[in-house]
C-alpha cells in the first residue's frame, strides 16, 4: 500500500492493507484534520484499504497547517514504510 502525505508531500509504503482508522492511528493523525482518498475516491474510517491501494492523506486545515505527525511519520518515511 502506497501512502502519500500532502503539504509537504512525502511518500512511503506498507506491505499490507489496513483500515483507514488504523492507518491514521499508526500515523498519529487526527481524523478531524485530514481526508483520506484511496485510488481517487474519498473513503470513511471503517473502509479496509487494499494491499495495493494508492492512498493520499490530505490536511484540511487551512491557514498554514502542515501534516507533521511528529516522529512517527518521520520514521515511516525514513524506513520506507
Amino acid at each position, binding site marked *: 500500500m502506497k501512502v502519500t502525505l*500532502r*503539504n*509537504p508531500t512525502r511518500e512511503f509504503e506498507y506491505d499490507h492493507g489496513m483500515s483507514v482508522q488504523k492507518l491514521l492511528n499508526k500515523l498519529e493523525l*487526527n*481524523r*478531524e*484534520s*485530514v*481526508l483520506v*482518498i484511496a485510488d481517487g*475516491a*474519498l*473513503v*470513511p*474510517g*471503517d*473502509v479496509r484499504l487494499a494491499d495495493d491501494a494508492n492512498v493520499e492523506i*490530505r490536511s*484540511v*486545515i*487551512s*491557514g*498554514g*497547517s*502542515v501534516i507533521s505527525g511528529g516522529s512517527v511519520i518521520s520514521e515511516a518515511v525514513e524506513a520506507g514504510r
Partner: protein
Amino acid sequence: MKCRVCREPAIIDIRRHNANFCTEHFLRLCRDQTAKAIKEFDMLDEGDRVLVAVSGGKDSLALWDILIELGYQADGLYIGLGIGDYSDESGDFARDFARQRDLKLIEVDLLREYGYDVPHGSRAAKRAPCSACGLSKRHIFDKAALDGGYDALATGHNLDDEAAVLFGNTLRWQVDYLGRQHPVLPARSGFPKKIKPLIRLYEREMAAYCVLQNIDYILEECPMAVGNKHIAYKEALNQIELQSPGSKLDFVFGFFARAAERFASSDAAIDDVLAPCTTCGAPTPSGECAFCRLAERATAAQPVRLSPRREKTSVRSGPSTPSEPDRA
C-alpha cells in the same frame, strides 16, 4: 458504512451528525446547510448579486460553487498578493475554476495596483505578514464590493475558522472583536454587507466537497502563515472535537445564541468614532486609515511598479468592472 438517507455505501462520516453519507447526499447536505445559514442569518435575498472573495483555496472555491448551485448571481474577486509561487499557483486555480464554469473573475494585483506586495509591505510597515495581508484584502474586498454595487461580499470562512477566531478572542477577552464576530455584518456607510455562508460547515467537509465536485484547489498553505496561532487553535479544537463530536458547532453557535449580544455595545461604540479616511475616504477611527498608512510605508521602502492606469481591474469574462480612484 451506509448512507443515512439512501443506505448506499457511504463515502464520508459526519460524526457531529452521527451519520454517514454517499456522494449525492453529502453534496446535498453541504448545499442545504449553506442555504440554511443564508436563511437563518438573513444573508441574501433571492436575486441578490454576490461578490465572492476567492483565494484559490478549497473554502472560497467551494463557496462560489455552492452559491452558483443555489441560484445566486455570484462573481469572484481574486487578489494577487505577490507571495511567490504560492500566489502564482493559487491565482491559476481561481482562474481555472472561473474559466471552466464561465464565471466572472475580477482580479486585483496588489503590487501593480498599490505598489507593494505582502512580503515586502509587511516588512516595511513592521507588521506581521498575516496582519498586512488581512488588512490589504479587507480594504480591497470592501472597495470592490461597494464599487461594483454588489448586495453582499461573501467569504469562505467555515465553522472551523470561526471557532478558531472565537477561541483566540476569548482567550484574550478581546471584547471589541467579540462584538463583531457574527456570520453577517450589515452594510454601513463605507462598508458592504459581509456574509459567511459556510458558517454551518466544517473545514473537512469543504475539502471533501471539492474532492467530490472535482474542484482543484491549492493544497499547499501560505508559506507566510506557517506556524501562526490560528492553526494552533484549530488543532487544539480538533483534539476536543475528536473526543466530543459537535463541540466546535456548540462553541460557535452557543456564542451566537447566548453570548454575542453581550458584546454588541463595544462594536456600536466603535461605529460612533468612524470618519472618512483623509486619503481614500474609507471609514476609519483615525485621520488616515490603516490601509493607506500601510501602503505609504510599504511603497516608500521598495521600488514601486504601478500600472499606467491604477483604476483598471482585469476581468476574465463578463462585463467590465467598476473603476477605482487614482491613488497615484
